[in-house]
């Protein structure tokens, strides 16, 4: 999984363009999980053959797509690499679990990894 995505990611980067934080957040809220052709190709063909073994939620490829969409290609690339290293190891002991199809999965969304530097833009509905 790590090696496969390592090769796919440089290609993946071509499919995204940086945008402002606000735009990115709004886009993420509207259209997550975002897919581009490379990600679709990975999820539809490689991941199917490789096996659905990711124990995290969202899966590493979905996480990568969300990170790229939310933070642009530089931070998305860094966050995706970080996630690939952490997948299914010590994170399991720290982050909350969710049962999906009877199997335990570790909840580790993008929000849980950018909270210390990325502030969610306030909407009119948010209390002061």
């Amino acid at each position, binding site marked *: 999984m790590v090696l496969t995505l390592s090769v796919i990611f440089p290609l993946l980067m071509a499919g995204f363009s940086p945008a402002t934080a606000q735009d990115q957040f709004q886009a993420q809220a509207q259209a997550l999980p975002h897919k581009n052709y490379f990600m679709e190709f990975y999820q539809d063909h490689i991941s199917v053959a490789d096996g659905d073994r990711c124990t995290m939620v969202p899966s590493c490829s979905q996480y990568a797509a969300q990170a790229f969409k939310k933070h642009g290609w530089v931070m998305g690339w860094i*966050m995706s690499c970080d996630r690939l290293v952490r997948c299914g190891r010590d994170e399991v002991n720290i982050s909350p679990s969710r049962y999906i199809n009877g199997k335990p999965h570790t909840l580790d969304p993008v929000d849980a990894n950018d909270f210390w530097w990325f502030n969610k833009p306030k909407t009119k509905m948010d209390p002061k």
Partner: protein
Amino acid sequence: MKQCILVLAFLTLFFPQNLLADKAKLIITADMQFSYADSLYTTRDHGAAQVEFKRFIHFFPTDPRIPEANFKTAMALYHAGLFHDAAKAFDQIIRREKESLYTLESYFIQSQSFMKMGNPGYAQIVLQNFLKLTEDPATQDRIYHQLAQIQVQASKNLGTDSLDQAEKYLSMISPVNAEKLGTDQQIKSIQKTKNAPKKNPVLSGLFAIIPGGGFLYCERYHDAFVTFCLNAGLMYAAYESFDRGNNALGGVITFVETGFYTGNIYGSVTAAHKYNKAQQIKILNREFNLAAKVDVMNNAYLLTFNHPF
């Protein structure tokens, strides 16, 4: 003759049934309906109870027990896990009945409904509005106490640190009620949580200059080992590629390695933040049993919290 037979057949077929129907006729009074709804509520069949209370409200709109029925409908919705509907029902009670015991409790439990929906912001707004309206010191203390509880609960979320605010609310409770509510113990628990063992995110990032060092500092040994091996392997592969004249391959490997190396630094800083929050949550879970409940069995409409909240 034919007519007589027809009349006899008609009487035989229908007359006894009519008599039986008269005997089986049941008129449900307001008392019966309320008592049935209340029995469902007491036996915690909240889904059925809310329906029966609504039936009572519909058929007996002038009954003096309507405010109680409204309140119990909202409570049944709350207990049935229909928090959005419960919050709406409590809102109607607040708007309809300006000053009553039910209104007072409705504010608190509406706030709890918002908390259950994962919206601490609105839970606070409800109580802060109530704080502006009420002049009763005991109620004000109860509001401060619940606001503190909301802040403690909210501080469990990543990226929020509202323990100072919780402490501030607890210190605003009058000395008369402070002892009753055990605020001293709660303030001590908050202090203990604030003094939880911490990892410095900057230091963690600096340790990550050696791949895996940051994770090691944050006690994530598996992550540290994998990070070290992966980065070392990719660095060696890049070096070997350039050394053998495979510059294109070396470039690709260097590009991939750059991502994993910077990801290692980023992950180490995040790991320190997560470690600090995990330590706080561990102490909060130990010190505060935050489950709020309503004493339904004793018909006491008071929010009770397990010690110390």
